[in-house]
């Protein structure tokens, strides 16, 4: 697991063995493998192209949002607004496609704008979160609560709460098309994961993110532009949420501002927590987040495929989160 850390470079606890340590270090990977083995043994028709496709298509939006969330949490923050920002971008895109904001001279221009503008708007709102947090020193959970409440309202007001149905093959490439047999949104997701993991480990910005989350005071004294780092991180989280909103409406050929991204903040936070990123900040693992999202998706799929109702899957997800964070806790105190 690619695990980037600045604050605890080589604590002795990491070199000592033991099952608990092993679970804490690679718990997500172990969990995923156990889940796969269980499914191979018990779930009928598990080994099929279709199973893989269904799970990857469903998980893509969560992973895209969770990548941004990982960076936010790495700085010691949290972003509750991602679901609402998805709704805003998902509400804007069809309005642009259908030419309801501006008449479009050329259909391809409409498609291009429908890709770019909603994501930028979501990014701008994300930047605004960061602005509130850094300029007024408002706690992230409260600052992003503002847009959590108002953001979905904005999306609903813009569309008057109506369902927007559309059909546009060029736009829906990011939800329905395949490249070399792989759904396009899955490729997008993998590019984002790889890019973010590289950035966190190899770039100055990545180091700065971890430093800010590890010890903000020390980071400031070391000359790191803490406010600027935080604003960029929330901006990225907003951009990711905007992109995920587009993916979701492209899959559905419809946009319902009441539903897009509903509860996404919880799924994303859960994926980050299960993936082993320290919730207090300072240590983050993007590949862990990918594994965490896959685990959450696969648990749900496993239960559903074996006839357990969706509501029981919620309880299972709760247990999973507690277990993951509890194991993480053991790792910290060991």
């Amino acid at each position: 697991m690619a695990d980037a850390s600045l604050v605890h470079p080589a604590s002795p606890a990491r070199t000592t063995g033991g099952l608990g340590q092993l679970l804490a270090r690679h718990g997500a990977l172990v969990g995923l493998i156990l889940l796969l083995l269980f499914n191979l043994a018990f779930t009928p028709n598990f080994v099929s192209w279709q199973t893989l496709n269904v799970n990857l298509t469903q998980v893509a939006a969560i992973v895209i949002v969770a990548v941004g969330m990982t960076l936010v949490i790495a700085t010691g923050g949290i972003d509750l607004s991602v679901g609402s920002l998805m709704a805003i971008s998902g509400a804007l895109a069809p309005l642009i496609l259908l030419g309801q904001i501006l008449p479009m001279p050329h259909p391809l221009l409409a498609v291009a704008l429908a890709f770019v503008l909603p994501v930028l708007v979501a990014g701008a709102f994300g930047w605004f979160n960061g602005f509130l947090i850094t300029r007024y020193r408002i706690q992230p959970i409260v600052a992003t609560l503002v847009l959590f409440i108002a953001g979905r309202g904005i999306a609903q007001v813009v569309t008057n709460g109506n369902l927007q149905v559309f059909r546009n093959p060029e736009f829906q490439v990011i939800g329905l098309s395949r490249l070399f047999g792989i759904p396009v949104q899955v490729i997008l997701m993998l590019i984002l994961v790889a890019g973010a993991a590289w950035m966190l480990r190899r770039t100055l910005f990545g180091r700065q993110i971890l430093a800010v989350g590890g010890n903000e005071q020390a980071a400031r004294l070391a000359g790191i532009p803490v406010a600027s780092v935080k604003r960029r991180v929330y901006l990225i989280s907003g951009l990711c949420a905007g992109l995920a909103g587009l993916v979701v409406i492209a899959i559905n050929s419809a946009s319902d501002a009441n539903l897009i991204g509903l509860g996404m903040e919880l799924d994303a936070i859960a994926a980050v927590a299960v993936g082993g990123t320290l919730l207090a900040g300072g240590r983050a693992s993007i590949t862990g987040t990918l594994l965490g999202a896959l685990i959450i998706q696969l648990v749900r799929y496993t239960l559903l495929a074996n006839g357990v109702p969706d509501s029981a899957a919620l309880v299972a997800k709760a247990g999973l989160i507690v277990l993951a964070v509890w194991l993480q806790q053991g790792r910290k105190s060991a």
Partner: protein
Amino acid sequence: MTRSLTSRVPLLVLVGRYGVIAALLLLILFGWARYDNFLGSYNILSFLRYTSMFALVALGMAFVIMSGGIDLSVGAVAAMSSVVAALASPFGLIPGLLAGAAAGLVAGILNGILITRLQIVPFIATLATMLAAGGTGLLLAGNQSVSVSYDTAFVELGQGDLLGFPIPAWIAAIAYVLGSIILNLTAFGRSVLAVGGNEDASRMMGLPADRVKFLVYAGSGLLAGLAGVILAAQFGAGQPIEGVGWELFAIAAVVVGGTLLTGGKGSVESTLAGALLLGLIFNILNFENGLGWISLSAYWQSVIRGLFLLLVVILQAKLVGREATG
């Protein structure tokens, strides 16, 4: 009365503390001047009947936040409790009430155990309880709403009146009086603020920080359970998918009420004012639409609430900054 561990009270901070009550009065004045029947008994009573559910949840949240924590599970716990209460309603008013309250209490105790025994951060612990309670509610209800029994007096808990006031409003009023007494006059109340202000220091002073935290979450669960009972009785059904977003409404009410999210400070009265204020925005929007000059869809409600929260947190941040430096 606002209690705080620091005794210095500059003028600006006073404005910040009582601003919410002033804003509430101004909003009521605005409504009274602008709309007929705004202060009519029908509007007041139905407003109180509806808002008391949210006020109960906000009260529990206020104590949790004062202790330096957060409780994201209250909405889902209220929904689950409404299902439990509806299932128990054929046995009568008291069994329905007790069953719903007990369901909430169990969820609160679970939060308390996760946070104090397993040392899981409140944000994640209560998030997990939120999912678990939501799932349990749906399982118990079989994925649909469960209608309550009209053969017993259970629905009185939501629809009945006592001495001219709605019973939910009585329940909320009693809870707030008790909450105010606990915060202002008991050792436990002071411990909550001490733990929220500086947990390590309060431990060194010999305060039972874990017990305080445990009780705060148990209390929040209990109050969410009561809100669930009222929900079921008021609308005649246990509603497993109701309660989505209640936790954020409650947090907003507490923040609007001037309680610092960092813990250690807060007031029961301002929380009530915050909850009433957020509820009143919705009420006034309804009246405004009734006038027919403008037509604001219900969707504006969340935009306005969000903007309001924004205003309050910025104001609060400025006041806190001023208090810290001046």
